[in-house]
């Protein structure tokens, strides 16, 4: 436990501080990728594949190259001399099929939107004009769209050289599943369909790359979640030392997992900058974003749950298919989603047996990747829906069912049936808190009364376990160079303010504010006296960036230890100068004080002395007012968090429209560094979960043609559609760290769509309608279920 200041009125940890940078962003003074311009810069536009699968017969760029303002038109043949192709390999996925991928198409295309050629021109508009002048002849090939059809004997092959569309197969089993189902008093089963959706960032992907030939240095600005990872891979692909590659992420307008990959178009831009020796800028427009950002969560899962006569869950059995698109995304692989979707099945509950199998298949669609709460929402919806169905089959309260079956190891730890190690959980406390937050008895009465009056209302719940702050074992053992550790550098400026640099990334979520709060408490200075820089590989330490809800649990811990180290250095320097034992001194609000809290010297005066009058120190003392701390958790592959969500929905019996009336979340993310920001993380996540449940869908036709080219077609939830979201917290500290913080960034997304799905089914059941197990819950689906009387008694 942090020993001082915490709990006192001065403590910053636990304070609801608005994120300082928000003021600049709200005032329009942000510096996003497209706000950055370099002398001599040219603008990129891509010719992208209009068809899902084709062999390119002819690609003629000479007319385009003569188009006004055009500097160059490049194809893979032009880039190949300076850029490697790549394959997504990972020992975590034995047998993973790894087709070669190139930044621009190499003779054929495997999805709509795949970049084929790159035009560089004086403006984006001129570049787009020239794109239209590229001559492209192709022979269309049959395409695979529907994931469940990808393994059929006569299915066309996305990559003929692989001989199959199977990318990877997951299988895990514990206990005697067959016996559990044979002995069950109740078995429920369902076929779930999850449609593709994506994380729509306000700021689209973008990159600006400049190459200085005299130094062989590539300088890159990118709207990216992990500039350090991008630096590493750009170095590899362009055969440059990492020291020759600088990546800077300035303000980043949202990531959600979309901006954590190595995208072909972004690599092409860097290779082009190297070839041309001129800065190249590419900012995806919304059409490009929707068709070439990673998509996620296309799964079909058949699952069943066995329950004994006492209402105890016995076993879960699931078989799924995930469609990952044309390639497994580089470098982390799209298969992570299936891995997490399968491993987190049944996670909140004690189950004696479990079986999970999944085929991960290639299709002629955009790549999928790690979208916020990777895989968890799939498992959560499957599990929580089955639990509700079982409760209904038994005629009991769905919350009673959950309460009875929660897996809570107390002070110990244990494994879920599908192999997650869990500890420090608080399911029961969260459920108690949720019931209080909702005012559940009164709410249920009012729901009953409104139903009597003819409204079609549903109340749905979804408990969850979210694995956060992934450790180095996961990618490290897979041989994939992903940093799970983070580092903070910290130094005292001559005026006593602090200069900090973190390997983490700020995407708008407020990690910067949280780190500053931790540093302030750890050192003993006001947060306003700390200047924190993030997202710069040139000056900042290498580290993870933003993924797997790591900001507080890993970054916060690095900050705490860095701060304590610096505090020790400061007190040692003060002790030498004041000729007082360091143990008798303390650092409070930027002042070095004695045991009676009398001021001895300000940090500013001390720093001035160190920097400008070092001779005043006794001979032999050389104060080091700068530290770095590299934090890697040594135990626990990931930190489990838990919580529960509830949704109240209203169905329109005439149109099938679903209105979310209210949403509740109780989450346990361990120590809360900033309740305001933690709450907003949860709310934002819930909105994305509701979006998935009701609106968002990357639609393709059966031949894999992409149908949603704009935000008029791809429906993101907007303020008018969103309910109030009440958030409560339970704080069960993670015992493996000093702060005890766990991840908070993804929990909102984890269970929101499951809660809405359960709520809609609750409403349908109340009027004797059919069941639904498909998201998004479109109005036609809901109306058909409302009118489905086949279940009526």
């Amino acid at each position, binding site marked *: 436990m942090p020993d001082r200041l915490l709990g006192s009125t001065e403590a910053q940890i636990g304070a609801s501080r608005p994120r300082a940078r928000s003021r600049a962003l709200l005032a329009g003074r942000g510096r996003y990728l497209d706000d950055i311009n370099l002398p001599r810069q040219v603008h990129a536009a891509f010719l992208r594949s209009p068809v899902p699968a084709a062999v390119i017969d002819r690609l003629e760029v000479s007319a385009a190259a003569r188009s006004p303002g055009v500097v160059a038109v490049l194809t893979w043949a032009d880039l190949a001399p300076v850029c490697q192709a790549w394959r997504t390999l990972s020992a975590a996925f034995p047998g993973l099929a790894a087709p070669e991928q190139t930044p621009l198409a190499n003779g054929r295309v495997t999805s709509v939107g795949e970049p084929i050629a790159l035009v560089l021109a004086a*403006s*984006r*508009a001129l570049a*787009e*004009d020239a794109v*239209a002048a590229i001559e492209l002849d192709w022979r269309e090939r049959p395409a695979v769209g529907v994931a469940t059809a990808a393994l059929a004997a006569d299915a066309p092959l996305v990559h003929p050289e692989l001989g199959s569309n199977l990318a990877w197969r997951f299988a895990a089993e514990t206990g005697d599943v067959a016996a559990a189902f044979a002995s069950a008093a109740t078995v429920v089963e369902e076929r779930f369909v999850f449609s593709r959706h994506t994380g729509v960032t306000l700021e689209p992907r973008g990159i600006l790359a400049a190459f200085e030939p005299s130094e062989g240095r590539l300088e890159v600005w990118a709207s990216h979640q992990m500039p350090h990872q991008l630096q590493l891979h750009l170095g590899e692909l362009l055969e440059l030392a990492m020291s020759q590659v600088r990546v800077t992420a300035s303000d980043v307008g949202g990531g959600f997992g979309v901006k954590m990959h190595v995208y072909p178009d972004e690599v092409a831009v860097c290779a082009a900058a190297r070839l041309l020796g001129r800065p190249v800028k590419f900012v995806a*427009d919304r*059409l490009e974003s929707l068709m070439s950002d990673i998509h996620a969560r296309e799964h079909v899962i058949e699952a069943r749950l066995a329950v004994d006569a006492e209402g105890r869950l016995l076993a879960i059995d699931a078989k799924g298919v995930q469609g990952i698109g044309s390639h497994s995304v580089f470098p982390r692989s799209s298969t992570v989603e299936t891995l997490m979707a399968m491993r987190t099945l049944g996670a909140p509950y004690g189950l004696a047996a479990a079986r999970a199998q999944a085929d991960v298949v290639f299709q002629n669609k955009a790549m999928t990747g790690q979208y916020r709460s990777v895989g968890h929402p799939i498992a959560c919806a499957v599990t929580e829906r089955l639990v509700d169905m079982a409760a209904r089959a038994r005629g009991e309260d769905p919350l009673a069912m959950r309460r009875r079956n929660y897996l809570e190891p107390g002070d110990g730890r244990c494994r879920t049936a599908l192999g997650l190690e869990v500890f420090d959980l608080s399911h029961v406390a969260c459920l108690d808190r949720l019931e209080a937050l909702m005012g559940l008895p009164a709410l249920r009465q009012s729901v009953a009364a409104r139903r009597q009056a003819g409204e079609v209302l549903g109340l749905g719940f979804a408990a969850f376990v979210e694995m956060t702050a992934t450790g180095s074992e996961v990618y490290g053992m897979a041989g994939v160079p992903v940093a799970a550790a983070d580092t903070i550098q910290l130094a005292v400026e001559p005026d006593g303010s602090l200069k900090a640099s973190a390997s983490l990334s700020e995407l708008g979520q407020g990690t910067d504010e949280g780190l500053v709060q931790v540093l302030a408490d750890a050192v003993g200075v006001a947060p306003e006296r700390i200047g924190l820089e993030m997202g710069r590989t040139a000056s900042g330490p290498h580290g993870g960036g933003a993924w797997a809800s790591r900001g507080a649990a890993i970054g916060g811990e690095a900050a705490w230890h860095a701060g304590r180290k610096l505090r020790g250095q400061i007190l040692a320097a003060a002790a030498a100068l004041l000729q007082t034992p360091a143990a008798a001194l303390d650092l409070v609000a930027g002042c070095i004080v004695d045991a009676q809290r009398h001021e001895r010297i300000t940090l500013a005066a001390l720093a001035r002395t160190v920097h400008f009058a070092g001779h005043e120190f006794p001979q032999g003392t050389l104060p080091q007012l700068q530290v770095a701390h590299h934090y890697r958790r040594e135990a626990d592959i990931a930190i489990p968090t838990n919580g529960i969500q509830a949704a109240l929905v209203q169905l329109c019996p*005439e*149109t*099938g*429209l679903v209105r979310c009336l209210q949403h509740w979340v109780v989450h346990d993310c361990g120590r809360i560094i900033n309740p305001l920001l933690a709450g907003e993380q949860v709310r934002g996540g819930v909105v994305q979960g509701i979006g998935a449940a009701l*609106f968002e869908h990357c*639609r393709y*036709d059966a031949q894999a043609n992409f*149908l949603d*080219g*704009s935000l*008029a077609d791809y*429906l993101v*939830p*907007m303020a*008018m*559609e969103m309910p109030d979201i009440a958030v409560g917290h339970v704080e069960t500290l993670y015992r493996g760290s000093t702060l005890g913080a766990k991840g908070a960034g993804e929990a909102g997304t984890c269970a929101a769509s499951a809660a809405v799905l359960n709520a809609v089914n609750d409403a349908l059941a109340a009027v004797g309608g059919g069941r639904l197990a498909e998201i998004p819950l*479109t*109005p*036609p689906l809901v*109306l058909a279920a409302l009118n489905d009387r086949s279940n009526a008694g």
Partner: protein
Amino acid sequence: MKPAPFHYLAPATVEAAVALLAEHGDEAAVLAGGQSLMPMLALRLTAPAILVDINRIGALERQSIDAAGYSFGALVRHADAWAAVRADDPAHLLARALPHVAHQAIRHRGTICGSLALADPAAELPACAVCLDAEIELAGPAGRRRLTADAFFEGLYTTARRPDELVVGVHVPRLGPDTRFGFDEVARRHGDYAILGLAARALVVDGCIKDCRLVYFGAGARPVVATAAQAALKGAALDDGHAHGRAAAAVMGELAIDPDLRYGATYKRQLATALLKRIIGQWKAPQ
């Protein structure tokens, strides 16, 4: 995406604008509020060689409300029209429909006439214009002419406007005091184009529907008048459930709804009857 290159011209008078249209014909596009045209240009769904911006033509800003009805010049924005109509008759069809057109910010730029000229099959205002027997006024090289809305809307994004004509205004006749209006639509999100909508009016005397007009949007290539359903309601009492049932059946039969990839014709037919029911409910409520 960025628009393909175009020439930009901003005439100051209707005559000058018409002269430009006469010179450039199909090559030119009129720019009013830009709320539909600019996105279409940016997505390169259209690439006119010349943009004729009419926003400097002060004469087109005029709107009038008098005993004869409402007149809106080609530069009258949705928001201003709404405020004026609401002040005159809060129950009026346009007062009900306009809040469903896009979002407030868009309604401050977009124009009533732009919406009519565009003739989006899912838009509210073309259906309202047909329902209200509005007249669209066009100016061309040969002078001005007026067309009824029903004659103006021809099909998907196509109207009777000739390439050398400018829509200069729309005239909405005032209807008798016994007129009741009804408007509703079904949209996934607030401000979206509707999946299906219905603009309607009825002449109600002594609780009896003397005459009515039912115009669906989102149902076909242009506003669709449900004539059989109108006939089924004509002469029926407002609370005559049987007549309502006959009208609903007629709607089901007569609406040849274009197959819709996203929502399907079956679903849209269900919405059509649901909307009809709601509209009759609106007619019953005191206005």
